[in-house]
């Protein structure tokens, strides 16, 4: 009980600091970068729920991300509803679509699910490219901004991350948390214990896709444009890398990882490094696996809680 309260207080403190410090200094460029970071942090939070807590490795989060962006943009431009509402509607649409696609692939075990998720963004890229109704190769332009005040946009993006972290917290602390752990550990034993494995996998997928869709919708409104390039592998590998670095199956791990990696990316904006970024990501991933298998938050938690762990 005491530890739970500590966790919650810690969460609130981190988010309060993130809300006040950047807006206080009012640096436009940094605020834009931080808004972008928050979007990727939310995407990483979404990845962590599916691949960290439930152990279903997703290599296709760019599909949920870009799909959410497209759905939100189309809804906003055609129906003229306010951006925030459009983002939520877009997330619901992509959740429905992904669950339909996911239903058969959830029966697959282990690496086969990962392979399917790897292919889906590739197909989506080709389909979007070929359809003029979806903007074709150029994508959709003229998406209105959420607000003209960069500080407001930043604060909304931060509250989205907070929402994602709180959803994870509530899910993990509930009955679902134990069920997800069981499925991650052993599917056959879970079934023997009475867990309807396909159903709970679908629940987890739905929540994860919804959060990724929110991130994607926000991304579309932040940039004012969404194009098929959003389906690229980088958008799928970034949340993975961020979560592994920060610590998978931890609440704040994905957020910590997102802030570190975004900082590295933005401070190393040199042509040759940008071009070889996939190589750098891979090297970083290897380093994490060897040095910090449980991520930064996992490492710190072991250090601090080692003596209080029951």
């Amino acid at each position: 009980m005491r530890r739970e309260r500590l966790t919650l207080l810690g969460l609130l403190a981190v988010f309060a600091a993130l809300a006040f410090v950047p807006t206080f200094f009012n640096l436009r460029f940094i605020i834009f970068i931080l808004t972008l970071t928050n979007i990727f942090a939310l995407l990483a939070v979404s990845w962590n729920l599916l691949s960290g807590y439930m152990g279903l490795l997703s290599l296709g989060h760019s599909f949920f991300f870009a799909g959410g962006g497209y759905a939100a943009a189309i809804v906003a431009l055609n129906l003229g509803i306010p951006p925030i509402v459009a983002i939520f509607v877009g997330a619901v649409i992509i959740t429905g679509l992904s669950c339909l696609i996911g239903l058969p692939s959830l029966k697959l075990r282990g690496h086969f699910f990962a392979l399917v998720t790897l292919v889906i963004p590739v197909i989506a890229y080709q389909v979007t490219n070929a359809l003029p109704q979806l903007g074709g190769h150029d994508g959709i332009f003229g998406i209105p901004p959420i607000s003209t005040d960069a500080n407001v946009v930043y604060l909304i993006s931060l509250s989205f991350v907070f929402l994602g972290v709180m959803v994870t917290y509530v899910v993990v602390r509930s009955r679902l948390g134990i069920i997800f752990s069981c499925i991650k550990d052993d599917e056959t034993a879970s079934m023997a214990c009475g867990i309807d494995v396909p159903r709970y996998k679908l629940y987890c997928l739905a929540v994860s896709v919804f959060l990724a869709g929110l991130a994607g919708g926000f991304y579309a409104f932040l940039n004012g444009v969404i194009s098929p390039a959003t389906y690229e592998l980088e958008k799928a590998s970034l949340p993975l890398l961020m979560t592994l670095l920060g610590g998978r199956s931890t609440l704040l791990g994905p957020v910590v990882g997102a802030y570190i990696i975004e900082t590295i990316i933005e401070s190393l904006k040199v042509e040759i490094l940008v071009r070889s970024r996939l190589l750098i990501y891979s090297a970083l991933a290897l380093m994490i696996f060897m040095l910090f298998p449980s991520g930064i938050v996992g490492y710190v938690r072991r250090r601090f809680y080692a003596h209080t762990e029951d």
Partner: protein
Amino acid sequence: MPILRTEGLTKSFGGIVAVNNVSITIEKGEMVGIIGPNGAGKTTLFNLISGMEKPDQGRVYFNGEDVTSMKPYHLSQKGLVRTFQIVRPFKSLTVYQNLVAPTTVRSAKPDHGFIDRILDTLGLSNKKNLPTNLLTHGELKMLEVARGLASKPILLLLDEPFGGLTVNEIERVSTVLKEFVENKGTLVIIEHRLRELMKVVGRIIVMDQGKIIFEGLPADVPKSEEVVKAYLGSSKVFGVE
């Protein structure tokens, strides 16, 4: 009405008939042992009954209801629970959480007193808050049995619960199993440790090459010629010269 009845269960893998036209009946409150040489089809029979595999032919009735090809988790929720020969603990949960999990997934309140009693009898109380990777093989085997019992099943299928256990540990497992049956539970046990098995069960089914070759009292098992032949002609395994 029998608690479990199978009718002509058959399952083949390629050219091998693993379970061949097996019909068994288990009455409520019984403790039945299934024995047989390796590859006799005992575990496959459990897989067919518990819904892990679909039979090619035949039907399974649990509590009078036709449950053939029902999903394993639905059967488990109905009270037909099985354990595994090769232990399958939930590695990211503690020993205690492993036992609470099968109840919480049914959104029911776990009976903490009951779980504590099981752990106590098995001698696992002092390890209940440890992660499962700190347990010995014998303790993991006992955890497997405990997890089966924890959700208070109607019928429990145990796949080699004594394998790799010390005499002392077998004693403890036998105690919790006897308690389970006294509290109106029904047990079916696959086991290779025959001497220990004979002490707890009231009836023995012997399988060989997918078929039932004997059904009856433990004392009568060594007298059956077919059984002796299946076990390489040695009646010593039953502890009777």
